[in-house]
């Protein structure tokens, strides 16, 4: 299935939870925030959030800034 991941069309083998997606991307969930279809997902809800075909996922982190 295809999703929009950080603005890029990305193909995933099958539907999965946000928690699993982060694990597959090797991203430490403690240092990022995620949006699922433009809504912020609270960290405790990552494992209950299922990503479906056509969904939009944004993964954000802190970087240098003033």
């Amino acid at each position, binding site marked *: 299935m295809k999703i929009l991941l950080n603005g890029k069309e990305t193909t995933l083998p099958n539907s999965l939870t946000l928690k699993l997606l982060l694990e597959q991307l090797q991203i430490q969930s403690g240092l990022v925030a995620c949006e699922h279809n433009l809504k912020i997902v609270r960290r405790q809800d990552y494992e209950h959030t299922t990503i479906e075909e056509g969904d939009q996922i944004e993964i954000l982190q*802190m970087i240098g800034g003033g």
Partner: protein
Amino acid sequence: MKDKPFIIGGKEYASRLIVGSGKYPSLPVMKDALTSSGSRMVTVALRRVDLKDRSPQSFYEAIPKGMTILPNTAACYTVEDALKTARIAREIVANDPPLIKLEILGDPKTLLPDTIGLLEATKILVKEGFVVLPYTNDDPIIAKKLEDLGAAAVMPLASPIGSGMGLLNPYNIQLILETVTSVPVIVDAGVGTASDASLVMELGADGILMNTAIAESKNPAQMAQAMKLAVESGRLAYLAGRMPKRRIASPSSPPQ
């Protein structure tokens, strides 16, 4: 005069200098500079994770332990974007209560703040329980309104972000210092070198936030130390109280 503590959102900070983490040539250089600055609070920005280049993941590791992380809403030009960024920041940075440096820009050329949007967003975020630190213009009226809306500090600019022009309007900053009395006034942006920082502190500002002056110096760790000393000496001079200015000389040695 004895100094009062520097308190933001109920927490006391041992340094009146707040530093940014942008524009450093490398993470080790940043880490050294942040350490030399003696600062206890560092600003960060929020961006998409680059799924191809994962090196920014080590950014967090390069922040000296114990520094409070102050996320910003940099690059936001609308109230809506700034609110969204603040709510995302709350998820990423574990401050309790959540801190946000609120920046709503009005124009990419000057990066001057949209103060109308700033007032609106401050009101909403204060209601949501954020400790709001708004970056604002050197306008005493807006500064007072921000204080009244519940901002945890008011942060007027010395000159535009990244310009290094120093304190362009000491008169307005002085008016803001006389007007805003219940929360710290932190001069944010425009400081170029140590004397600029001292001058700001000599006026009685509670603190200074800077990034480019340190990050773009040839030796950031050394400039960070210079800024630490400048902030401390400017503060001491303010507390001590300067001598009056005279138009004519006054001999230091007694006349014959």
